[in-house]
């Protein structure tokens, strides 16, 4: 059976992509941010996963408001970088793990999650940035991907509790998949930020630091919080953090936090990551 090798939570701020595109990796402003990802890059280079399941939200690039899937699952053979207004970024096309994705589609529907299934899908910075942060800028991505897209833009967005349950189901799907492939799960988004309204520019570094410190060891509070509490504590767009709960929900109750990192502000956003392995 396939094996879950670990879970990563990470920001997917678009300015990270811009910083990479502009060659600012080593700049004074950005170096501390990128350096914080080095241990995760080393870990993943050593573990060599075959499949990365990436949970993220589309930011009005692949889906318009004419149809808004609360949950969407990519089952395609490949995913191209989306044109977000500046033209598609020059990064490799992502190869889809479509066999596993269809298996996951079966398990999700049987488990009463009913995603929209996507055969042709461009993916925006929500998926691009996490992949670049952990795999750098290879000629070709060293893993196949399964995108899971969550609506976090148009209300009602799904509840944190539902995200956690999706993670539990994802774990079962991985461990019932009859190959010996290794799977890593990336929950993305956040940390605190707000882009809209007079509270724009809200960040909450204290809450963010607590999040990266506790999402591994003591996630009960985050699982129980309401959507409104996420928005209050992390800002309207910071509610993206609910997608980390899919990653956390698919891990064991007891995990080792191998690495954590926090940096603020990245553009207008608290940014950071955690790397978790099951303790058992």
């Amino acid at each position: 059976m396939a094996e879950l090798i670990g879970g990563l939570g990470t920001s997917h701020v678009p300015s990270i992509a811009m910083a990479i595109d502009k060659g600012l990796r080593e700049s004074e402003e950005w170096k501390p941010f990128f350096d914080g990802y080095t241990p995760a890059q080393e870990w993943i280079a050593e573990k060599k996963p075959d499949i990365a399941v990436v949970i993220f939200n589309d930011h009005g690039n692949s889906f318009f408001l004419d149809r808004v899937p609360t949950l969407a699952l990519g089952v395609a053979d490949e995913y191209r970088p989306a044109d977000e207004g500046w033209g598609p970024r020059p990064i490799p096309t992502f190869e889809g793990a479509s066999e596993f994705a269809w298996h996951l589609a079966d398990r999700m529907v049987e488990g009463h999650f009913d995603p929209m299934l996507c055969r042709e899908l461009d993916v925006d910075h929500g998926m691009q940035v996490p992949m670049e942060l952990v795999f750098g800028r290879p000629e070709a991505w060293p893993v196949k991907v399964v995108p899971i897209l969550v609506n976090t833009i148009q209300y009602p967005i799904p509840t944190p509790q539902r995200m956690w349950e999706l993670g539990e189901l994802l774990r079962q799907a991985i461990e019932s998949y009859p190959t010996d492939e290794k799977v890593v799960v990336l929950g993305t988004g956040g940390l605190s930020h707000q882009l809209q309204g007079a509270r724009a520019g809200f960040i909450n570094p204290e809450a963010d630091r607590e999040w990266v410190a506790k999402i591994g060891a003591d996630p009960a509070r985050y699982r129980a919080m309401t959507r409104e509490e996420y928005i209050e504590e992390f800002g309207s767009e910071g509610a993206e953090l609910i997608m980390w709960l899919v990653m956390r929900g698919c891990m064991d109750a007891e995990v080792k936090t191998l690495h954590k990192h926090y940096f603020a502000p990245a553009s207008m956003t608290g940014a950071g990551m955690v790397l978790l392995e099951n303790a058992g």
Partner: protein
Amino acid sequence: MTTFLLIPGLISDGHVWTATRAALEAGGQRPALADVTTQGDIPEMARDLLAAHEGPLVPVGHSMGGRVAMEMARIAPDRIAGLALLNTGIHAARPGEAEKREAMIALSAREGMEALAERWLPGMMAEGRAPDPEVLSGLQAMVRRMTPEIHARQMRALLARPDAAATIGDFAGPMLLVVGRQDQWSPIAQHEEIAALCPQAELRIIEEAGHFAPVEQPRATAGVIADWAAGLPQAATGKEPAMSQGDRIPDTPLFDRRRANAGYELNKMAMGLSTPEGRAAFLADEGAYLDRFVLSPEQRAAVLARDWAEMVRLGGNLFYILKISAVDPTPIREIGAAQAGMELQEFLDTRLGKVTNG
């Protein structure tokens, strides 16, 4: 989260609450069924229910269950987030009541529950209206599920009922009163007495219904209760509010139904900039490009002025309208500052100034 505790009346069970329970669940509330078949008096029923059901409660009581609900509010007002009282009353035992009740107790003891159902139920149905055979057979089956012992215990509990008239006026929380138009046993006037003591109470009359309004007109009765529950303040129900409408966090415009509707064309216009053709058309003749979409004059003016706060106010979502900044370059932090109503430097200092790395 608050529990809506459904309390049946005399020799009744969950059958009375089937529709109400479903309607509350559909509204995202948490209903639970109360058991009042074992206790010897109404204060004991109230204490048992308070002990058996944790947290804040909204007792929803039918007939004798209403009496229990009022007693719960007397004993533990801090735990009672609201009261829904159906087909009930607050008067003390009336002259001759004890004799009549003892005769009924004797009947069920002597002839059994089926005979009791035959004698008792007709007077409970809407006056002047042939009872619906399905409604009647459902109630008969319910009575048969009870025993003469339960009947006797509850009847004597009713005879010894506490003086609710003396205490109900102290309950200041939300209250719903529901009564069937043709309730012969506890008529509308009894509910008006309660409303006179509790000015906050809402009195709702169910048409074509008698004393078993929740069974005789299940949809109408359940709807009234569920609507009232939905209108309770969030603090009373502990239910997470629906997030498709309404802002509750200051200066935080969530992209809800109202904004998605108001801003649809504005966002669609911006979405058009995610293709090279759209960007070229916008750059070549912005006015002509905007004419492709059904923008309000205000929305059009806001786009032309690059007034980001106004675009958001008019239903624009930043993830879409940000594409304007790809064509007419504007840093995201300037867009943030404009919405905060600050100069850029002030915005950076006060909102994003807390640089914390590591």
